[in-house]
């Protein structure tokens, strides 16, 4: 079985990664890190660079776990996470969630919300340590 983690190169993604690693260590399962972008802005800080992904990889491998990284440009970031969970028959999806203002909710979609609602398996929603 595998644990899929929706990773972004920010505190939310790192919190999700940390919890995913802890949970994977407890269950002795593989970790699949999904880091995707829509690629429609010139710069997307949540899309990890190669150095960052190398750190992600080593941080999980240091725990003695197997890790696969899916790093790609997709039409739909939440869709990419859900598809990965379905394809790998994941036991758990871990996603970082953030506080959002009412206006923000009205204007923009939420990757976290769509993953929680659409994932075929239990979802662990985590917040970064305050």
């Amino acid at each position, binding site marked *: 079985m595998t644990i899929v983690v929706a990773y972004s190169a920010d505190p939310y993604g790192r919190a999700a990664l940390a919890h995913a690693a802890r949970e994977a260590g407890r269950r002795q399962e593989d970790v699949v890190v999904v880091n995707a972008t829509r690629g429609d802005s010139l710069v997307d*800080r949540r899309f990890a660079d190669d150095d960052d992904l190398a750190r992600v990889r080593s941080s999980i491998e240091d725990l003695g776990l197997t890790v696969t990284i899916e790093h790609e440009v997709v039409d739909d970031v939440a869709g990419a996470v859900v598809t990965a969970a379905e394809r790998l028959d994941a036991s758990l999806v871990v996603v970082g969630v953030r506080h959002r203002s009412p206006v923000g909710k009205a204007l923009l979609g939420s990757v976290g919300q769509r993953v929680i609602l659409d994932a075929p398996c239990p979802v662990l929603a985590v917040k970064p340590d305050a």
Partner: protein
Amino acid sequence: MDLLLEGFATALTPENLLYAVIGVLLGTAVGVLPGIGPAMTVALLLPVTYNVSPTSGLILFAGIYYGGMYGGSTTSILLNTPGESSSVVTALEGNKMAKAGRAAQALATAAIGSFVAGTIGTILLVALAPNIADLVVKLGAPSYFAIMLLALFTVTAVLGSSKLRGFVALFLGLGIGLVGTTTGQQRLTFGSPQLADGIDVVVVAVAVFAIGEALWVAAHLRRRPLEIIPVGRPWMSRDDWGRSWKPWLRGTAYGFPFGALPAGGAEVPTFLSYITERRLTKRPEEFGKGAIEGVAGPEAANNASAAGTLVPLLAIGLPTTATAAVILVAMQNYGLQPGPQFMDAQPKLVWGLLASLFVANTLLLVLNLPLAPVWAKLLQIRRPYLYAGILFFASLGAYSVNFQAFDLALLLAIGALGLAMRRFGLPVLPLIIGVILGPRLEEQLTTALAISQGDLSTLWSEPVAVVVYLVMAVLLVVLAVTAVRGRRADSVVDQAKNSYQEVSM
């Protein structure tokens, strides 16, 4: 001098100061964003000419022009993607500096160099433009005809890497300029009464810049995001100042004359400045790894050339860059005809505009040094949102010309042409200059021939015209010789020219 002080009085009224601030902010923002430049922005803002006074409108546009030159350098340095064609060379050394952890110094030398060059350039402009206007008064129609021909020729053949593509674009532009019934008989109207008045330049400018670019981006929407180098507040050490001031002055010396010549534009002087700095530097080993001279020189050159471009624009009414061309359209919307009489007929406007250039330059320095990290954030905007706004303003602008739905159809058709031009690597500048200068070229030709009663020899009857034709002949020979000699051009220049192709106006 009194005139200039009066100009400052005009430029510093709260209203005009506000327009200058809006102009430089907007200009910097669009300069930062690759694909969106000052020419497109001014084209989209042409409808403001309907309710803003001419002085304020031109101050706004000049602010956008200067701001675009500043903004382009930020993207070049932090992202290695030039925001503007004039910043292509800056990326060569600037991005290397940023990767070596010297982004703050690169941004500082670019901003301060732009300020120095812009200020010197504007002083030269103030000193030269009235004198040139006095000389130009004496020119007759044959000379005007020759000068315009030279401008069309140089813009097409000297800039850009492919002569053939340049001329294809030029003749497309001249063709669009022919539509209408100015000569009495119908030309290219296809019997349509809506085309009888010709195609409005505003529609053409908005279509090729905004619609063409938006369609192009839509066709290439999903791309791997670029890695941006984080940066704090720009600053320079004593050593950086020492290494920067000479390149600033040399860059200015290249930029202004090239801007002022009909073969204008910022591409050639920035290349020349880069090559010169590489040759003169005391630390050749740093070039290619992030030498501050290679940022300081070209950045000064592009701002000085922006000031230089305004000399032919104000004194002869001759645009040599895309942005200058669209500013000329704005002037024509106001019913102003730049040229020799312009300075005497509209002293308040002209001197107010010139004074506002000093104001804009100072504002840019004050804004850009502390705000560089904020400008970099603009790159995170999702392009669909950005281009939705651009398409909205484009449609609004085209529709407001005549309030006819037909113009929207034209907008789409010419926009599709703009997309095709980007797809096949045709430069946009010759087209837009062709549309604007074509009809005026014809007007000068008919005037000259009417005066001489059809005698063609009148075309070379004035000394200025003869000199201009000689210059064209020399250019033609030089181009032919370099073509025969094959491509011995510097690899750096080639590389930069290739990336120039990808950057639109």
